């Protein structure tokens, strides 16, 4: 009798408890989508799924809006992953980032404050069609672009990170539709780029920070991709970027170089980061995660955890800086000053 009961309990246990999601393995699109739904169910007052566009092949592009309820006007942080299909470590990082903030806000007062003052808008996979194509078989693994057909029908794909309306088509592109840096028929010709443009564009005053996650190269890139343009807050971007790189180095000793794309990597135009900066979103960064070329795009799954941990440290630095610049600054100084005055007042008495 007890044997049967035990078996029954065992069976019920597995029925009721979902297997833990493995953040340190690569997941196909279907698993990421169901994970997103699962997170929204698990954290109903904190996580909402927002469908904000359709891919060329008519798939839904979704983000997770994560934040705590607040009476005051909230600001926003943008993060997107997987704009380039083959950069699998990027969607892995977005998923890890979501898990981290959801795990820490209950015990970390700072994270709680940030989630009260700001909403995090996180797109785990922006280029849904491209990502799915890269999972098709081993010969499609290194696909980069989206899957819209080229003008002649003889070629596929636009480089979404050349398609934004930011000095579009001027440098770092190729007019050959077979090229991996083909920028499309025109600025925001691609539905995936349109989705980001409309969603962020219609709320641009809310955004403090726009982070776009890529691999590989171990870089933190600041605007602009065009060598003739300099961001008005270049010094600030460099300073915050260098501090983020320092934070990254402390985690696992990996060096990330910081600078504009034309200085550190190559010039380009039409990037999402450049477009975001042109919308006056002050802190815009491209993250190029591990590694330096040894494994390249096929980063071993054993490296997912350390890569995510260090990138989280870097991203958190930038986000915290953006938050504190807007919310804490005056209050913190006033509090410090007031404490000093009270102390003085006591002495005067």
């Amino acid at each position, binding site marked *: 009798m007890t044997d049967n009961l035990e078996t029954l309990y065992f069976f019920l246990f597995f029925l009721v408890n979902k297997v833990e999601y493995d953040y340190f393995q690569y997941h196909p699109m279907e698993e990421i989508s169901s994970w997103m739904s699962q997170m929204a169910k698990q954290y109903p007052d904190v996580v909402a799924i927002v469908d904000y566009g359709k891919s060329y092949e008519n798939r839904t592009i979704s983000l997770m809006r994560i934040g705590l309820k607040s009476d005051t006007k909230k600001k926003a942080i943008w993060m997107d992953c997987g704009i380039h299909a083959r950069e699998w470590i990027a969607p892995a990082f977005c998923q890890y980032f979501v898990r981290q903030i959801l795990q820490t806000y209950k015990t970390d007062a700072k994270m709680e404050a940030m989630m009260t003052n700001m909403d995090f808008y996180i797109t785990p996979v922006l280029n849904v069609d491209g990502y799915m194509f890269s999972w098709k078989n081993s010969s499609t693994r290194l696909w*980069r672009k989206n899957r819209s057909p080229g003008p002649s029908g003889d070629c596929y794909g636009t*480089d979404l990170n050349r398609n934004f309306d930011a000095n579009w088509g001027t440098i770092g592109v190729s007019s050959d539709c077979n090229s991996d840096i083909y920028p499309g028929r025109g600025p925001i010709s691609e539905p995936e780029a349109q989705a980001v443009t409309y969603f962020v564009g219609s709320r641009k005053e809310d955004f403090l920070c726009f982070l776009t996650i890529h691999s590989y190269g171990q870089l933190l890139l600041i605007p602009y991709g065009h060598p003739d343009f300099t961001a008005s807050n270049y010094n600030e971007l460099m300073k915050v970027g260098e501090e983020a790189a320092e934070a990254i180095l402390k985690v696992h000793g990996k060096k990330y170089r910081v600078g504009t794309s034309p200085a550190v*990597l190559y010039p380009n135009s039409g990037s999402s980061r450049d477009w975001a900066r042109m919308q006056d979103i002050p802190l815009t960064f491209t993250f190029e995660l591990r590694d330096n*070329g040894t494994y390249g795009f096929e980063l071993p799954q054993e490296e997912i955890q350390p890569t995510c941990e260090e990138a989280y440290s870097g991203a958190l630095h930038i986000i915290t800086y953006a938050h504190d610049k807007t919310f804490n600054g005056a209050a913190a100084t006033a509090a410090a*000053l007031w404490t000093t005055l009270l102390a*003085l007042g006591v002495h005067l008495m």
Partner: protein
Amino acid sequence: MGLRRAIVLVALMEVTWSLNVTTIGPETVSTDASAHPEPAEENTEQKEAAAAEEDVMATGELNPNHYPAQRAAKLVQHYLNARYGSPYKLFGLKEVHSGNAEEVADSGRKYQLEISVHEIISNTKEKCSAEVFFPSGAKQLSPQVQVSACEEILKLDAKSEEQALYQQYKTNKTVRTEERLPDSYGHIDPEMTPFWHLSIVASSFIMLKESTENTLYNVAQVANITQLATENDQLKFDCHVLLHEMVSQEIPQWKLLFTWSPAEGVKVLHTEQLPHVHEFEKRAKPN
């Protein structure tokens, strides 16, 4: 307490009050000078000049974190791998410490670099000095690399493992891969790892030859490697590699025929670039 003290306190309170302005939006923060002073107005002219300078080929002292020194340094990695690499010895560029570039009258540009090189398998690091020369002109001449002050890392001994592998595959076994190296998940079967290294070493000959100041090559993936029979004492391989060229973001594909033995190292017999094939695109219909 005294009226004077009360006045002082009230005055100080007034100051606090005015500072306690809730700032929403980055634009307004600049008025709150005591909290986080905005960085001084950048000298955009200076910045534009600096950017323009780098646009025209960089000369003189180079920023080690910027692409000109980084691209030149990558060639040192390819050179070391081609020259000294083996199934158990593979080099990576760890860091660029400093660099200098100069025009060499009518013949090309020369880079002098101080870098740190990393032997990946033993996980040893060493500082090296190197000279990289990019020839100019219509003829597609290969870049030239010279390395000095780098002896320790090149003396690293993997002879016994190399001999063991060589014996095994000379007599008993034969290599024929079934999976790409690495596979889509970054995994490599441990028995295949020495052949992944060998393919990278052989590819380094190509990457060295094809590199210019406008490219940055890495091996993206080994599609397959097959061992062929030989009449001599070398092991012989046919392999198909996918390179990644960073600036164009392209994946050039090459077939190589090469030999290897512990004594002779890697010798490339034949290379062939495959056409920019998009067969899978033409066959594949939208999902």
